[in-house]
Structure formats: C-alpha cells, structure tokens
C-alpha cells in the first residue's frame, strides 16, 4: 500500500454538491419543444471521475480486478463493464479516464491503490472538475459536426471510441459508448460555455434538456 493520504471529497451524501452546470440551470430555461425534438441533451451529474496514470502492464491486472473490465490498450478505445456502469477510456499511452457511478469513486480509488501496492502509478480524483453530458436524437451528429473539427462520421467514429479534441472554442472529450447516443466529458470551467453552445447549435433542430 502506498503511503498516500486519501480523503473522500464527498463523504456520506451528495447533499450540497452542485453539478458543473448548476449555474447554467439558473440562467437557462429548460428547453422542451413539442413533438420529436432533433436533439436531447442530458447531464449525468456528479459521477465519479478518476485519472489513472502509469504503465499499461502495471495497471492492467488491478483494473481488471477492480473495475471488471480490461484496460484499453489501443488509442481512443473505451471499455465498459457488462452493466455499462463503469467505463475506462484511453487518453494517452500512460493515462486513462475512469468514470464510475457517483459515490463509488473513493472506494474504487482505495481498491486500486491496494491492488497496485508500491507500483509506480498515480490516481487523481477529478470528479469535481468535470461532468458528463449525453447527446441523443437524430440530429445529434449534426450538432457535433458544427462543433468540432474531428471527423465524427460513424465510419470514422465507431461505437467504443472516445477522443480528446477541440469543441467550439474549448476542449472536450467526445465519446460514443453506444449506438444511440454520444457523450461529452467537459471541464467545469468550460461547462457553461459548452452548454450554451449546445443549446444554440441545437436550436434549429428543436432541443430538450433534462
């Protein structure tokens, strides 16, 4: 066990915790147009996010034991456990992003630290620094195409892929965990900008938020 001091950023309950978009929700009316909105935007607030760094060989076994999925070794791959609740994404040759249900991040960090022992690695809880938005609807792809220079055509961007790239004038992680929706992992400091960007870009197709 490493001699790192850990502490739980969100002890006991989520009470009092505010999502990265808390301020935006005060200032933007919820959108709910009539039938068949082209785009649905939904926030998955207060999930647990961990940045895991180290060599792939060192991390692989611990990740398999703790998360129930293997470490993605190919660039831009995302692996999920069977239930789809826990995911791990390739960010760089020695960095991965782990996203777990809110409240589990502290115990998962502890389990990973225990499994990795004195190996050379780093785990940082970045839950407070970013949030996840899902984009769905038949026009979601059009909205992405307006927002990023990355090729998001399904042929170039299959299910199970995720990339860090530019988004509007900010940056975001764009992920495609399933056939029917896209995910954006956005930083707290860019959250309001990206949320308003998405509302603006989706307006012509009709957009609902929740």
């Amino acid at each position, binding site marked *: 066990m490493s001699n790192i001091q850990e502490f739980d950023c969100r002890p006991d309950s989520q009470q009092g915790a505010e999502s990265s978009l808390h301020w935006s929700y005060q200032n933007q009316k919820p959108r709910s147009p009539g039938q068949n909105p082209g785009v649905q935007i939904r926030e998955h607030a207060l999930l647990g996010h961990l940045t895991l760094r180290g060599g792939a060989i060192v991390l692989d076994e611990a990740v398999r034991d703790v998360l129930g999925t293997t470490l993605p070794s190919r660039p831009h791959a995302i692996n999920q456990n069977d239930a789809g609740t826990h995911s791990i994404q390739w960010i*760089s*040759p020695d960095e991965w992003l782990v996203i777990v249900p809110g409240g589990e991040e502290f115990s998962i960090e502890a389990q990973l630290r225990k499994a990795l022992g004195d190996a050379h690695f780093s785990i940082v809880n970045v839950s407070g620094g970013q949030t996840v938005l899902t984009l769905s609807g038949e026009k979601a792809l059009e909205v992405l195409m307006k927002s990023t*220079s*990355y090729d998001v055509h399904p042929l170039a961007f299959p299910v199970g892929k995720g990339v860090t*790239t*530019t988004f509007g004038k900010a940056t975001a992680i764009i992920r495609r965990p399933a056939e029917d929706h896209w995910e954006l992992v956005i930083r707290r400091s860019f959250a309001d900008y990206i949320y308003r960007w998405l509302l603006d870009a989706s307006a012509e197709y009709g957009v609902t938020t929740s």
Partner: protein
Amino acid sequence: MFHIHCPYCDEYREEEEFHPRGQAHLARPATPDTTTDDEWGGYLFFRDNERGIHHELWVHSVGCRKFFNITRNTATYEIHETYKMGERPSVTAENLPDSQHQSGVQAATSGWQTVGARPESASLNQEEQV
C-alpha cells in the same frame, strides 16, 4: 492548415490541436560543471534556422498531451514524417534525394540563409572587431 499525424494517437489531427516547441534533438551538455559558457549559451539560446529540412519538437496539447518530433520542410511546409520521442528521424537533409531537397528551395550562395540578402548587409552580420 497542417494535418498532423500524432505518433501516439496514431491518427491525423487538425493543426489547432498542436503546439510547436522549436528545434528537436537538443542534447543537454553531459557534464554541466565543466561546460564552458559558450557551450551553455549555445545549448540554451542558439537555434538553427534551416531553410529546408528541419527537425522540430511539437506537442499534441489538446489530444494526448505527448511531445513528439516532426521532420518538416520550412520552405514548402511539407511534413515528411512524425516520430516519437527517443527515436531518430528517417528523413534528414543528408539522405533526402537532391531533387526533393531542392524542391521549392532557392539555395542561397556564400552561406547566406536569406536569398537576396544585399551585400551591404554583410557588414551588419560581421562580428564587431575590437
């Protein structure tokens, strides 16, 4: 707009995801204690200003955030290759065929980097005689 192949992400990305960080393969003097001021000065401050093949350090700052190298022609903007840190370039000014080497590059005579440098500017470039 460059379309740059990141050797770590193993795909092409837009130039706006990258930042250039100057000349590549700068070796830090191995024995700093005995290195002369001239050598330190050269290592810290003096860079090549190649017209033609140049090896550069870039960082994929918006993507994987890794540093890597690019072999680029500074006259034509052609990117010959990108390669990881610790690797050596396979394309160099020496091994590139002459025809390619010269494409778009006007060779300056008598060692001047700038084509068309006027003779009178020579005096400005000469070291001050004490």
